């Protein structure tokens, strides 16, 4: 059964921007704030935005408090993370989801936020938005991609159509969407943040990893039984990949294609999700239909 979608945002609603992981300058959220205000949304800027504590946007306690406050504040209808980085692992076990479960709200983010998505997906029946964060509006000011979070937040059924890729495997699948950053998905395995994958459409993305390392992490998902259970696979962007002195001699897409050859589910490559400008909002926990055909692929919310 698909997860429950929080209420759509309406004019006048409050949206919080918080940084539960890495640090960022406050000025980087300005473009996002402006766009939210254009939609007549009121923006509450969390304490962790603009704060720096060595690597993080505040101590573990400060980051936890900022996120917890936003979760528990009944006037805040959505939380948009400022950026990813690293830090969710350090606070996730102290997060109290009791109020959130009774009063769901949209949570938006990706990258390190993947762990928050999988944790919420595992422990609640609430959908979340994997998508560009506040910082994306600053990184890509003229791009349409960051704005894809708005239809997601405002109760529009999402549909994406892209060109087919030569490595795709034709087929259709329906299922709840789950996924995110490959490293964080692997990191969740065996912990209480590991998501259920049975019957789901899995999407993965990665950035800046060695090809062999991404190969190893994908194999971990396979050997942990994820591929035995999923209905479809969406391979997003694997950007800024590194290679060893002795090259891997295969790109990561081809390696993944090889690893899934004995399964039957449809597979799409180069879907616009990941650490590049091409990163569309996806509702984790919502039911989707994936149609992999030639010349185009459609991922559509049902």
């Amino acid at each position, binding site marked *: 059964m698909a997860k429950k979608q929080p209420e759509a945002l309406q004019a006048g609603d409050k949206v919080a921007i918080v940084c539960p992981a890495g640090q960022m300058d406050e000025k980087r959220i300005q473009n996002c704030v402006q766009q939210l205000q254009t939609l007549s949304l009121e923006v509450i800027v969390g304490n962790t935005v603009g704060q720096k504590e060595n690597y993080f946007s505040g101590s573990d306690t400060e980051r936890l408090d900022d996120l917890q406050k936003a979760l528990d504040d009944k006037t805040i209808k959505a939380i948009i993370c400022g950026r990813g980085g690293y830090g969710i692992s350090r606070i996730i076990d102290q997060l109290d989801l009791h109020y959130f479960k009774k009063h769901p709200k949209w949570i938006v983010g990706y990258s390190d936020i993947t762990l928050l998505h999988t944790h919420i997906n595992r422990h609640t029946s609430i959908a979340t938005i994997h998508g560009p964060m506040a910082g994306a509006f600053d990184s890509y000011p003229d791009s349409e991609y960051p704005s894809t979070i708005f239809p997601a937040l405002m109760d529009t059924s999402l549909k994406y159509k892209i060109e087919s890729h030569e490595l795709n495997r034709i087929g259709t699948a329906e299922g709840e969407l789950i996924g995110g950053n490959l490293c964080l998905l692997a990191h969740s395995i065996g912990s*209480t943040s590991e998501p259920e994958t049975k019957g789901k459409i899995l999407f993965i993305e990665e950035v800046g990893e060695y090809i062999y390392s991404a190969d190893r992490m994908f194999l971990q998902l396979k050997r942990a039984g994820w591929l035995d259970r999923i209905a479809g696979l969406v391979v997003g962007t694997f950007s800024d990949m590194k290679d060893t002195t002795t090259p891997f001699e*295969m790109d990561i897409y081809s390696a993944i294609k090889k690893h899934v050859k004995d399964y039957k589910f449809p597979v799409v490559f180069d879907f616009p999700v990941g650490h590049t400008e091409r990163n569309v909002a996806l509702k984790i926990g919502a039911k989707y239909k994936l149609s992999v055909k030639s010349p185009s692929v459609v991922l559509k919310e049902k």
Partner: protein
Amino acid sequence: MTACMERKKFLTTTSLLLGGAFIRTKTWASPTKKSIVRPPYLQPGDTIGVTSPSGTITLEEIKPAVDLIKSWGFAIEIGKTVGQKDGIFGGTDAARIADFQYMLDNPNIKAILCARGGYGVVRIIDQIDFSHFRKHPKWLIGFSDITVFHAHIHHHQRVATIHSKMCNSFPDDWPNADALKQDTIHSIRKALQGERLQYNVAHHPSNKIGQGKGELIGGNLRTLENLAGTNSDIETDGKILFLEEVDEPLYNIDRMFWNFKRTGKLDRLAGLIICGFKTMPDDPEEQHFSLNLQQIILEKTKDADYPICFDFPVGHQVNNYALKCGCKHQLDVTPTATTLSELFIS
């Protein structure tokens, strides 16, 4: 011996007064499993097989190792994967499976020495048939990516294995190699010939004092993290866990230790041995990670009641000594030194 006993008495008395705060002695019962089997130790004339289940290596690169091992009185059979290359691998997955399987099943080969690490074992481990090996165990030697074999064999076949340097770490010029390099290579020979291994290591200020006994298990941190949830995953209850790492930034190390904590691997150890951790410098675009290695580990083990030691001489470094994975060991962390002793079961 007398001094030792007196010190122990003093500490025991103190612990009675302070509610046991000083002594951490852990001997958990190991769950379910049958006892670990030590393969037969090597005799002069025995054959050691050399294979490369992970990265690519040439015949020339293993020559110093081959020459030295022959001088020890052993024969060497060089596997087909030596000299092969498929991208980063020592041959295709199929070729590496075949070579390793041959080594496992050939009764003349009494030990398997991996030529090098790299990456590749997880791509082949599920196609390896260990049934002959289970009935006729032999020593498997290696570290880094070979951690996958140590973990898998420990869990399934319950056979002891040797975590140590491989062919690619044998010095080119043995007679003129420095003493430390020679000593670490000697430790492989000692392990193979049945010597009881014991290591005494200098005290580290971050060590947690205590004593623990249990099967030794561990290896490369990232490799182990990526086995979570798979059938090569390690169970650590009642065991002494040793970990090493190379070329990972501190935030990744922090993340990996969170994975270990959150998958229960740090909960019921008999002891924790932190070996060489060669960390990568922080990303210049990010701020410096605020915790050092000891802080990263100690914050996640603050409620632990087992001994913890740092800077143990194992890892991607010159001082990388052989350890018999799976065998029961005793870890003694005192205020002056750390001792890891293999416990013999006759």
